């Protein structure tokens, strides 16, 4: 048990890196120490990677979604991987990049927010959460140089401003707030193009969910690393809403009709 008056912080991340430095994210792997280009690293193709994630703002909240495929080089290593996670009662995050470090970061961020809330008796503000995540991404920079990139997308409901907010990140820990939508990962560009075509401000929740599903279907058509809906296996993208109602999972039954409509539209062409 840590009973150390010197250790007065409320951050779990800081506690972890002081107590267990070998477990802190971003610690470079000794045998490949030193910067190398991400593409040149053998790690990049040897570990599973998660791909397309996106977030769209609508009136009263944010839709955050991701496909379900993980790839190892040209192989599909997972069809049912989860890339969108609830982190606390009012925020969710999606992750793209090397799956292992991504999932580690989700777990660490979930613990971080709960830890702060319990110690301080009050949750962090949305900006506070977004900044803390930026520090964690920045901490991962040494690993990113070795090819283990983690790119999160963060969505939080701001109870004070009564609206959903989206934050995107770069590998150096840069934190940027997006006012409308964002998509990233290997199929991110295709998803973003699709959203751009149909997005308008003041969408309702239903429209935003439809747009998210359609964007992911578009990305799956163009990008090999993005998995589209798979009705035979019953696999659909993960979609969550972040609003005054908290973090709500959108069930596959609600996603399937959007996929059908998408196929219908394709057939009509």
């Amino acid at each position, binding site marked *: *048990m*840590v*009973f150390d*008056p010197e*250790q007065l912080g409320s951050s*779990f991340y800081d*506690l*972890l890196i002081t*107590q*267990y430095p070998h*477990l802190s994210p971003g610690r470079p792997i000794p045998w490949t120490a030193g910067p190398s280009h991400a593409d040149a690293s053998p790690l990049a193709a040897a570990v599973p990677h998660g791909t397309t994630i996106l977030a769209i703002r609508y009136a009263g909240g944010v839709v955050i979604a991701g496909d379900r495929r993980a790839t190892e080089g040209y192989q599909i290593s997972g069809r049912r991987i989860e890339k969108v996670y609830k982190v606390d009662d009012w925020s969710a995050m999606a992750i793209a990049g090397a799956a292992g470090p991504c999932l580690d970061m989700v*777990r*660490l961020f979930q*613990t971080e927010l*709960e*830890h702060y809330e*319990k*110690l301080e*008796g009050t949750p962090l503000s949305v900006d506070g959460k977004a900044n803390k995540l930026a520090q964690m991404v920045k901490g991962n920079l040494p690993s990113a140089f070795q090819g283990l990139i983690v790119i999160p997308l963060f969505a939080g409901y701001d109870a004070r401003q009564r609206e959903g907010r989206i934050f995107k990140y770069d590998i150096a820990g840069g934190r940027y707030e997006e006012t409308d939508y964002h998509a990233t990962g290997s199929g991110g560009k295709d998803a973003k193009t699709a959203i751009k075509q149909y997005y308008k401000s003041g969408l309702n929740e239903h429209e935003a969910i439809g747009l998210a599903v359609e964007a992911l279907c578009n990305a799956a058509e163009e990008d090999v690393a993005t998995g589209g809906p798979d009705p035979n296996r019953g696999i659909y993208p993960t979609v969550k809403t972040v609003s005054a109602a908290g973090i709500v999972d959108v069930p596959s039954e609600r996603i399937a009709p959007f996929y059908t409509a998408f196929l219908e539209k394709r057939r009509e062409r």
Partner: protein
Amino acid sequence: MALPYYVSPELIMQDKAEYAKKGIARGRSTVAMEYEHGVVLMADNPSVSLNKISEIYDHIAFAGAGKYSEFENLRKAGIRHADMKGYLYSREDVTTKSLANAYSQSLGTIFSQEIKPLEVEILVVGLGEGETSEMYRISFDGSIFDEKLVAVIGGRSEAIMAHLKQQVEGPRPLPDALKKGLEALASVGQPELRLQQMEIAVLDRRRSGRKFRRLSQAELIDLSG
């Protein structure tokens, strides 16, 4: 050279214990009781923001009596211990017993090694498998007691315990448990005590994930009817 006076270890411990006991008895009491759906914690606490009861982990809660700064430090240490264990292993590996033991070790070490013992008494309560609950009372010297049905710390804890022991035979519905707890706390010279003036929280087995919940002022007014 003057020789230092010899003081027997027995006397040192006795003095320390007396000092700590005095500090703890000066404060107000906190009661923990098993109820129908888990454990309810009631603290006679006039402050709205300086809490005596806190969440530690999914199914574990903490209550402290005595010196605020000291049990607050213990509370934080407990949250760090539990969160770290849950992160390194898994959430289900964080157990009430292991946390209570860690507290007992820390308090024991401080009592025997530091000049000033901690003037605190703490409760570590947790929900177990099925319908069971665990309640550990840990004293300033690290001694640990496994309590059943009810546990009381701080202030005139023995008198309150004696009162409650007669009243409570098994877990009751929440309003009933609150009534018994209030009566017991009021029995030691505070007849005007009201539920609304207390800090009350439950570990509710029916909740998913984090079981700890504070009862709001509005709920307490409803419950006190």
